[in-house]
């Protein structure tokens, strides 16, 4: 087998890269997915999409991604809604910190603002604002159906000639004289000069086979959904004090998560303390939840980088090797823009957004870390 580009990983990142490459005419592409599409973190995510971050790099990339989410949802036909985000605060110092973040958001065209309980109640009817003093409202933020997003991208890729091999694992990236020459897979050897690592939690291991160390840690996170309802509230709501979040998904289920203490790089297991911990916070915010049924509980990895920004783009040591991983818990939302940027790196040699160039592996090697402060869940 031979292919111009091989993409390792069939989550939101991998299918988006394949789609953006194909739209620019590069269709001689093989995408490898070791289980089924979306089986990594993408189908386990909270479905939230926002640009209310604290660094120029994140805000600018995400602002572009949000425009793309809208276009893609129309082009490919999946659910996407700009229902907003509400970050709820219980302490004055939280409000002050986010007032400063809001200035950064506004500077880059993200219209967030501080609001008070009356307006919070309008945006999320049925919410109990006891103990909540204010919130940051991000009207540009929203949510999208991850199943529809991943599967429709993949379907469109196949129509354009991209080959998608599921149940196929990349075992080794073959490097000779500092250049990528192929990938060994469970379905045979593929000759190629360009490989993109979009393998989520598997990125560090597969990069190692090319002699590249990606400083990523896989940290388990947990989520649950309830039975379905008609639309109760539009925004994704974050209780910043506890890091718990809640969102009504495209299908009507109520999805929630919270940060509980976890060890990095351990297998995904069920934590019996997760459900009580998250529902206790949420029942205070939405008292009617008490009578609602929990349908499913699961866990998945946040792939954490040292500074909570993804590692994107080419790797200096190995020609033809690209990375898109380490999103630190917000990589679903970045899928569209990362797909476009990686396609640009491959086709044009550089990305159209200069902020992306600051997110390569080199920043970590050179100690130029860019810390993100607003990581949720």
């Amino acid at each position, binding site marked *: 087998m031979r292919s111009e580009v091989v993409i390792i990983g069939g989550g939101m990142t991998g299918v988006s890269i394949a789609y953006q490459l194909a739209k620019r005419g590069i269709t001689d592409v093989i995408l490898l997915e070791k*289980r*089924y*599409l*979306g*089986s990594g973190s993408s*189908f386990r995510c909270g479905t939230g999409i926002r640009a209310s971050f604290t660094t120029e790099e994140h805000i600018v990339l995400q602002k572009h991604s949000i425009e793309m989410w809208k276009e893609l949802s129309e082009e490919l036909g999946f659910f996407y809604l700009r229902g907003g985000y509400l970050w709820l605060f219980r302490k004055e110092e939280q409000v002050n910190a986010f007032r400063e973040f809001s200035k950064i958001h506004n500077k880059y065209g993200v219209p967030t603002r501080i609001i008070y309980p009356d307006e919070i109640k309008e945006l999320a009817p049925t919410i109990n604002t006891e103990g909540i003093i204010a919130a940051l409202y991000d009207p540009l933020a929203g949510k999208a159906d991850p*199943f529809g997003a*991943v*599967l429709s991208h993949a*379907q469109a890729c*196949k129509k354009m000639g991209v080959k998608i091999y*599921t*149940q196929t694992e990349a075992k080794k990236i073959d490097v000779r004289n500092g250049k990528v020459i192929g990938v060994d897979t469970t379905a045979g050897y593929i000759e190629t000069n360009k490989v993109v690592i979009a393998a989520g939690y598997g990125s560090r291991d597969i990069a190692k086979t090319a002699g590249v160390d990606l400083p990523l840690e896989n940290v388990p996170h947990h989520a649950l959904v*309830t*039975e379905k309802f008609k639309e109760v509230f539009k925004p994704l709501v974050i209780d910043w004090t506890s890091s718990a979040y809640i969102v009504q998904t495209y*299908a009507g289920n109520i999805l929630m998560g919270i940060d509980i203490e976890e060890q990095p790089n351990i297998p995904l297991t*069920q934590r*019996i*303390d997760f*459900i*009580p*911990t998250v*529902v*206790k916070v*949420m*029942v205070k915010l939405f008292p009617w*939840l*008490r*009578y*609602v*049924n*929990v*349908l*499913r*509980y*699961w866990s998945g990895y946040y792939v954490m980088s040292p500074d909570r920004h993804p590692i994107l783009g080419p790797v200096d040591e190995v020609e033809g090797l690209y990375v898109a991983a380490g999103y630190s818990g917000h990589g679903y939302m970045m899928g569209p823009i990362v797909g476009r940027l990686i396609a640009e790196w491959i086709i044009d040699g550089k990305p159209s957004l200069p902020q992306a160039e600051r997110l390569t592996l080199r920043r970590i090697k050179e100690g130029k870390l860019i810390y993100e402060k607003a990581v949720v869940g």
Partner: protein
Amino acid sequence: MGEKMKKGHPIFVCRCENVTLEDIEKAIEEGYTDLESLKRKLRIGMGPCQGRTCLPIVIRILARKLKKRPEELLIPPSRPPITPIPIEVFLASGGEEDEE
């Protein structure tokens, strides 16, 4: 829905999520040929019964279409709790802070 109605009797395979035999056959033809993707494409198995009613039927439909034995298909894991449980029940147990 319009299409389904015209043909008279839609055969519902997944009652929780209103998915018909026709929906499933169409999705398989479009290339959704594994249970995990069919599940996400159509939401079969994602209702309150968690697929206990419909998945065995879907497995047979898919096996027939692919000319495989049902045992050869990869079966999705079931996620806890196996039956729906009211949130109230969890309020009484464990978890971090306790007041109520």
